C-alpha cells in the first residue's frame, strides 16, 4: 500500500534556536498526527515526536531543517509543523503561551 509522502524545508528563525520549549511544542504537535515524521539536519535524521530527538539537532537561529512525513495525514502534519516553525513558535495550537522559556 502506498502511503502519501510529504517533504518541506523550514528555517529556524528565533534567536534562541530550537531549545527545550520549542522542541516540546514541536514534538507535542507532531504527536497529534498518525504519520511517521522525521526531521533532518544534514546527515542527522531524528524522530519529530520525541523531544529528546529534536533537541539533538542543536538547531540554532538560521538552521535549515527538512521535515519528512509518511502517512495518511503527512501533508496536514507538515503544514501544521511548518506553520509552528514559521511563527517562531508562537502559533502553538495546543497551548496559548508565548515562545519564551
Amino acid at each position: 500500500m502506498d502511503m502519501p509522502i510529504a517533504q518541506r524545508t523550514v528555517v529556524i528563525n528565533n534567536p534562541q534556536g530550537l531549545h527545550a520549549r520549542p522542541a516540546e511544542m514541536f514534538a507535542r504537535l507532531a504527536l497529534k498526527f498518525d504519520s511517521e515524521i522525521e526531521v533532518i539536519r544534514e546527515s542527522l535524521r531524528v524522530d519529530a515526536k520525541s523531544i529528546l530527538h529534536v533537541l539533538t539537532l542543536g538547531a540554532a537561529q538560521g538552521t535549515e531543517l527538512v521535515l519528512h512525513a509518511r502517512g495518511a495525514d503527512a501533508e496536514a502534519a507538515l503544514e501544521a509543523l511548518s506553520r509552528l516553525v514559521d511563527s517562531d513558535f508562537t502559533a502553538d495550537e495546543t497551548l496559548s503561551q508565548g515562545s519564551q522559556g
Partner: protein
Amino acid sequence: MKFIDFVSREAIRTSVEVDDKEQVIRSMATALLESGKIDKDQHDSIVEAILKREELGSTGIGRGVAVPHTKHPSVSELVGTVAVSADGVDFDSLDGEKVHLLFLLVSPPDRPGDHLRALENISRQLRDETFCRFLKQSKTPADVWQLLEEADNNQFV
C-alpha cells in the same frame, strides 16, 4: 560542548529522596549554592525562575529525564548539575513517565548558544540507552562523574 564544561562536580547529588518537582529543583539549586556556583542571595530567585519556566511546559523530555533550566543575570557562565532519584519524581513529562535523572542548567541571558549546545549534548548522549540506564543506576556522585567523563570521551556513542 562536553558535560565537564558545564556540570559542577561538587553539586552532583544521587539518592535524592524528594518526590515533588519543586523540592527536587530547590535541592539541586541548593547543591549549586553549596558548591559555590551561585550566590546565596540569588538562590531563591533562581529557584523561582526555574519553577516559572516549568509552568510554561514541563522540561521532562522523555525517557525519565528532565532538564529544568532558566536564564539568570547573576551567572556569568553556564552552570549545571545532575541529580538522580531512584524512586522518581512526578514531572508531567510528555511521555507520562516519572523522572529519575535531572540536569539543571542556569545560563547567562546573553548566551543562548551555550544553552542550546548543552541541551544538544545532553539529549544526544542520553539517546544511548546504556548510558542513560547507567546514569539512573548511579549510587554516588563519583559514579555519575565517571559516566559523564566516559560519555565526553565518546565511550558510549
